[in-house]
């Protein structure tokens, strides 16, 4: 008896789909429920950030970087202003560096919370863990509102520091947050980490081996979940990361569960970094006086930071004018999508959603 003749079906996942995390489009070919081919389609959220940067001056570009990875604006700001500081050789006061690290680590927690919550939402948990994550993220956003007057599009950093010192009530709220947060993470862990349905859905799903991960250039939690111990905060310490003590959590095998668990542990490490920063920070100026229109010397530079999603780098070319000649962004979300096809092929439709969710892309950054 011959086998039943089946026909592959091509389905357009997105650009309007509840779980593609934005306007991401995947042309997926299914054999029944099984994926045999994937073709990602980008560009629905392309706003030409890099081109726009060429007609803005160096401070105005800060507002553009907010809109790239809109769940982690602070990290984008940091990556950008560090590049300008390197290009124009601007010093940053020590207090400003501490404040930057604190705010970036807060942003990392917020971003990882969203990634975890949406991963669970993709798993079909009816948004309950998502709302729990958002409840805590809300407190971080409140801190950002104190710090810089906005919650999402922060524009907090400037070449040469941050634009203003943190208000007095910020420190109290921050202390309350970092004392509460480990308890909250424990609660989230007992809701998710040991849940057998989550284990059954995520363990061994969407494997990305360490060789594959390094070959395709992924970075951030996706790389570390594949047991590659690579973190720019340690490998190339910037700001004051060499003065704080923290671990780099790595995963076992690079499956979806590892990517989730690495993020969870990174949140704990971030709390550790913040509490050390609070101990070490001392009063002082927070901004080096820079001219309104920064004119860096002719030259080019690349500088990168460890964003919540991976290595976020800016390559900038200056022609000596008030705006850059060229600005190129190395967006981690975009590059982390490189091994997508290898990760997805052979899995089922439900796995597609959670593998995509565990990579944690933000379309503002993928399309820029």
């Amino acid at each position, binding site marked *: 008896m011959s086998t039943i003749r089946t026909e592959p079906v091509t389905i357009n996942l997105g650009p309007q789909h509840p779980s593609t995390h934005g306007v991401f489009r995947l042309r997926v070919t299914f054999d029944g429920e099984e994926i045999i081919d994937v073709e990602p389609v980008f560009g629905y959220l392309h706003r030409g950030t890099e081109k726009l940067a060429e007609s803005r001056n160096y401070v105005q570009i800060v507002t553009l970087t907010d809109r790239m990875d809109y769940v982690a604006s602070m990290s984008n700001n940091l990556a950008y202003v560090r590049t300008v500081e390197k290009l124009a050789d601007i010093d940053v006061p020590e207090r400003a560096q501490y404040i930057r690290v604190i705010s970036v680590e807060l942003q990392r927690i917020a971003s990882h919370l969203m990634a975890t919550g949406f991963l669970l939402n993709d798993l079909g948990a009816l948004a309950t863990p998502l709302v729990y994550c958002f409840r805590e993220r809300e407190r971080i956003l*409140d801190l950002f509102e104190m710090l810089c007057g906005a919650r999402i599009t922060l524009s907090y950093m400037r070449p040469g520091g941050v634009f203003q010192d943190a208000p007095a009530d910020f420190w109290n709220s921050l202390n309350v947050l970092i004392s509460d947060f480990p308890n909250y993470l424990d609660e989230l862990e007992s809701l998710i980490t040991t849940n057998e349905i989550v284990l059954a859905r995520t363990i061994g799903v969407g494997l990305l081996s360490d060789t594959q991960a390094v070959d395709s250039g992924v970075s951030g939690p996706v790389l570390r979940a594949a047991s590659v111990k690579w973190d720019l905060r340690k490998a190339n310490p910037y700001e004051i990361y060499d003065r704080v003590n923290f671990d780099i959590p790595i995963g076992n095998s690079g499956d979806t569960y590892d990517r989730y668990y690495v993020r969870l542990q990174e949140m704990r490490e971030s709390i550790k970094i913040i509490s050390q920063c609070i101990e070490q920070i001392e009063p002082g100026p927070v901004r080096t006086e820079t001219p309104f229109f920064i004119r860096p010397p002719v030259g080019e530079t690349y500088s990168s930071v460890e964003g919540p999603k991976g290595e976020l780098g800016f390559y900038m070319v200056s022609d000596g004018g008030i705006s850059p000649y060229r600005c190129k962004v190395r967006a981690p979300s975009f590059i982390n999508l490189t091994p997508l096809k290898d990760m997805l092929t052979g899995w089922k439709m439900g796995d597609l959603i959670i593998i995509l969710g565990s990579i944690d892309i933000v379309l503002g950054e993928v399309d820029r």
Partner: protein
Amino acid sequence: MYGLGLFKGLGITMKNLVSPSRQFNIVQYPNRRASPFDLAKVDNQNPISFIATHPIKTLRSLIGLETLVDRMPQHANFRGEEFAWYDRRCTGCASCAKYCPLGIIKIVTGTSGVNQQEGQSYDIDVFDIDIGRCMFCGLCVEACPYDALHMGSGFEEGKYRRSDLVINVDQLKAAEKKPSTWFRPQLTDRGHDPIKGSTADWDQVGRHEKPSLEDQGERWAKR
């Protein structure tokens, strides 16, 4: 043991259901349904006497007809929509217009009819801010050398037409001045908090204690 994780999860959700400290800090903007207890609190009565004295109000609140205004909690640093602009401080230098990443500020100046010695300022004929395109980065406020332009504190600026979203000079002059303390540490030092309703006059918002007429000539220009 395998299988216990599922029940642990059920325990966590039940804990979040019953424990009031785990609730979201919910603001029912713009108003919330008030229970008789809330109404009694507003009236400064104890609930029992309130129910006894206001039976109709109690009934109405029980079927959900009584509402109380609920405001979003904001920090004084909040970068709000409408701008606070002090025409007496503005010299018409158009730094804000040059610094705006989107170029949405339009300034037209003319020679001032009043005493030149006093303010050394131009007359502002047009000062349009198209807040429909504004992204509230605050760079214009940062650029202002005379602390004339401040971020506002509100956010309820919905209009039916895009053209209504352009704030012109008359609206800016007439508006109630509730500047945000964003990038204005001197306002924080004075204890100014726009969310609590305090307003600030033109002579209070500057970086100086009390700018006198002599000050204007000497210190402001130096900065």
